[in-house]
């Protein structure tokens, strides 16, 4: 199943549509600034399953140590 379009994403807590914005994430001490759908009210960030199990997973694996 493909990811929903940005216009279809609504924050359940705030009942506001998500907007793409700069998000700071970190993993194993590395910080990233990426653009992801987020709630303009509470800051909730939406990560699609496709991204989480695709590119984001590859990034995690690239940073992990044995």
């Amino acid at each position, binding site marked *: 199943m493909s990811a929903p379009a940005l216009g279809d994403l609504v924050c359940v807590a705030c009942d506001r549509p998500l907007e793409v914005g700069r998000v700071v994430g970190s993993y194993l*001490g590395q910080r990233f600034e*990426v653009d992801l759908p987020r709630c303009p009210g509470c800051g909730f960030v939406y990560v699609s399953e496709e991204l989480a199990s695709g590119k984001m997973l590859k990034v995690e*694996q690239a*940073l*992990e140590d*044995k």
Partner: protein
Amino acid sequence: MTCSCPGFPDEPTESVCPVCLATIPAVRRAIGDAVHLVKTCPTHGTFSVPVWRGLASRVRWGAGARTFAQPPVCATPVSKGCPHDCGLCPDHRQQSCCVLLEVTSRCDLACPVCFASAGRHGRDASLAEIDRSLDTLLEATGGRVHVQLSGGEPTVRDDLPEIVRRVHARGFEFVQLNTNGIRLARDPAYVEALAAAGLDCVFLQFDGVTDAVHRALRGARLAALKEHAVASCGNAGIGVVLVPTVVPGVNDGEIGAIVDFAVAHLPEVRAVHFQPIAYFGRCPEPSADARITLPEIVERLVAYGAGTIRFDDFRPGSVENPYCSFSGRFRVDASGRLRAERDAPAACCGVSVEPVAKAAKSACCGSSTPSPDVARARRYVAGQWRAAPSPSVDTPAAGLDAFDAILAARSHTLSLSGMAFQDAWTLDLDRVRQCHIHVVAPDTRLVPFCAFNLTAIDGRSLYRDQAAAPAPAPAEA
């Protein structure tokens, strides 16, 4: 004469007698700046052999947290004691991470150095036998292992791509091939077929960059063939790990040149995995000069780096016994210089090692859970040893530049690691019990690698002799 160092008291363990293979008490003892394994067989006398040269690094290597996890399935009971009950038995302290499946005992070389004592005349495991081994392995591990196809020389089989397919079809995610690379160099269509079947990684025997080294260790001039094998794998999109067997006085002088070769062949070469020579098969007691230990290889890498590589850039493995391995990962810049990926913590995924260690004490076979530490080690290996993702797979996406930059850098990341196999003189049963590299025997038992290949001074094997006999036919339903 032996004596202990005040700052490094004797550590008791167990080993085997190299003559009769009986389990006997042993100690790890500081002698000068080295740690020796010292043991006495009541019948065959005392043996003392260096296992680690450098007390300072020995202490550092042992300071980290250790993780233990009981195998989910124990196929054999504890009867005669380690290492005579392998199957795995309930005394084993780590789950399988990588499992070797020997698909043939034939080989197209006759190497003076061969842990499997393979030769030109041998037999191939039938596809039915391979299916049975894979089914049992799946049942024992839930498929949560890497599978290394080994031998003999697996590429003597024309049906190797079909075997790769059968491994993947059962859900094993990562398949690597242990090979001398001769056929890969000469038969690009065969390499393409392996890639199409899903082969993830070639574990390429690579003892040096000169024919003098190959002739000494393998009895043939192989330098040009190795180059072609790497190119074929690169063209087919298969990651390559260079695997030198390091022998003092033969190729320890080429350690830097091997790393240079790896750097020059990025991104198809993903790693160099050094293996200090261990003495299997019929051979007289090796002298101390015939051995090189892991920290000595690290020291050679530090010297090679000329200031860019530090000893502290390397760490012990987190799931195997710390004295079995080292690894470090490096970014390679445009000029070919290596820089460590520093400051990454040893534990990750937010998982503490402590709960696993506790679980190992209370769990019994059949009730243990998959080890998150072993899972992490598998992910690290698969992530680093597979071919770097091509741009077509990871197309840059708007706003995700930071992710793309990390993935792009991966193609210029090289892992340098080493693993010390144990022979009848160096075997430390604490290490064997924590081994996570196992061999699936023809009768489908899982046997730690060093126990499977263990031989007495007269060449008698604890497990391989049984494996050489025809496998019993499966019972009729």
